[in-house]
């Protein structure tokens, strides 16, 4: 069946749409069918949504402190009821995006495909999903009528402006949500961060269990800072409580595709590799010469991170 329309959930952040949202709009418009965007909050993002390919922007408006999942899914379900379903709804795989997808799926009683890293039209949308650390690609499609709900990982597509006119804004009212809508944000805390975001940094320096203890993560942050990059982590040290979940690179966690990824004391579990194997260049430091990380590293240093990393810090400092 030929595609006729697509909806994209676009997430506001500090007055603009997130990069992951722009990636999805950019990809959606390549199918040559009308693309509508759905957003919420108090920001005016119609110009940006239009610029990246949306002709209509359904605006849920202010959520009055509610977590987005329930009210936004309610509004989308309302739109589906009022105007019929699009072929597919594309949602960024963010904290709130996943909430919206889960709520919407259950509300509409439609299945959802998550961790999508590619989409193509083959008589309907076919999605790609990495399996077993990205060594295999599973292709999947929905079997019945739409809308297909696809949750797409960041960095799956490039974000490119199309120079389109501002999207026409249409109100999307929130329906009755009852008890489900009772989770509210009391206060937001912004943690100090220096340097670029993990997903947007040209250099990512990550640490793993090989660091030995939590204090040693400071040297990962120092290398990252010296290279104007971001500090990441393997699941093992996030599970151990050394660093927060937001630093995690991998299947559970973030996908990064920097110019160079420097893995320090990371053996290369499949769960980690799927999140970083798309990096342009990979450098690995690990004391085990058989560590799987070396199979994908452009430069592998078999050595002790406690010697190599401090030496690297000195060398970078010496360059000024």
């Amino acid at each position: 069946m030929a595609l006729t329309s697509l909806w994209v959930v676009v997430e506001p952040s500090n007055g603009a749409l997130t990069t992951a949202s722009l990636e999805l709009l950019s990809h959606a418009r390549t199918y040559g069918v009308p693309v509508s965007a759905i957003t919420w909050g108090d920001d005016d993002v119609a110009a940006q949504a239009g610029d990246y390919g949306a002709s209509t922007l359904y605006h849920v408006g202010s959520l009055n402190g509610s977590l987005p999942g329930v009210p936004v899914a309610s509004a989308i379900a309302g739109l589906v009821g009022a105007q019929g379903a699009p072929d597919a709804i594309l949602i960024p795989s963010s904290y709130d995006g996943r909430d919206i997808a889960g709520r919407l799926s259950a509300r509409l009683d439609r299945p959802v495909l998550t961790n999508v890293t590619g989409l193509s039209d083959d008589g309907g949308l076919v999605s790609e999903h990495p399996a077993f650390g990205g060594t295999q690609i599973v292709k999947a499609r929905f079997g019945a009528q739409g809308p297909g709900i696809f949750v797409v990982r960041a960095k799956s597509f490039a974000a490119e402006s199309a120079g389109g006119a501002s999207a026409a804004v249409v109100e999307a009212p929130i329906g009755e949500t009852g008890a489900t809508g009772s989770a509210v944000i009391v206060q937001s805390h912004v943690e100090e961060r220096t340097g670029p975001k993990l997903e947007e940094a040209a250099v990512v320096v990550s640490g793993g269990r090989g660091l030995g203890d939590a204090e040693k993560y400071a040297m990962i942050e120092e290398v990252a800072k010296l290279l104007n990059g971001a500090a990441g982590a393997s699941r093992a040290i996030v599970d151990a409580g050394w660093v927060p979940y937001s630093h995690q690179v991998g299947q559970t966690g973030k996908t990064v595709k920097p110019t160079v990824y420097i893995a320090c004391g990371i053996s290369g579990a499949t769960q980690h590799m799927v999140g970083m194997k798309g990096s342009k260049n990979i450098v690995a430091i690990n004391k085990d010469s058989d560590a799987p990380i070396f199979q994908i590293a452009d430069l592998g240093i078999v050595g002790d991170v406690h010697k190599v990393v401090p030496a690297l810090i000195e060398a970078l400092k010496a360059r000024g």
Partner: protein
Amino acid sequence: MNVVVCVKQIPDPAAPQSFDSSNYLDRSGKLILDEADTYGVEMALQLVDKAGEGEVTVVSMGSAAELAGVRNALAMGAAKAIIVSDEALRGTDALGTAKVLAAAINRVNPDLVLAATESSDGYTGTTPVQLAELLGWPSITFAKSVTIEGTTAHVSRQTEAGYDEITAPLPALITVTAGVVEPRYASFKGIMAAKSKPVDVLSVDDLGLADQVGPVGARQEIVSVEKAESRQAGEKYVDDGDGAAKIVAFLESIKVL
């Protein structure tokens, strides 16, 4: 306070994994408790302990032929387990799983349901929120900390910028990120006690969900499984005091420096 923790028994992530002839994850080998679930079990035990009353029930979907993972949760201190086990469940998707878990949880009537943010094998990551919607409850995902005061849950939720303080009235569903509590090791006494704790095994028919599960309920199909493009290993050196210099030279060659 009664707390349900959703847990999953998964193939050991450290062992080689493959698809079976139906392109489902091969689960025929040894199954273990998903490590991601141990944080929810620990948190539930701590919350019930603090409340001074109530118990922890683990609820799982999957083959009851293997119960080592569920017993592990019981050995940590959960009071009982409900496992929905049925050949008809093979090929069930996230929404179907949520329907099964919702029907099982409705038999327990808990104040709080905890789950991991996603399983370590399928990692769909939507089942808990689908479950909350089916239960008609609020949900708070990606919790870094959870406290309960009276009938209100107070949660610090991970965000891109930092974290949000969230409140929700009970009953509620909360997903916890790894590393937020330190899961206890089961004691010998706990392991022995777990052997006699009740494990209730339910079928799909018991829950009245026959047409909602399996590949038919999933309403999606796998088109193909292909080998992904693989990266080639580059140069590998044993550090001889020159490892850092080699990295600097490499960074220069790709113009990062």
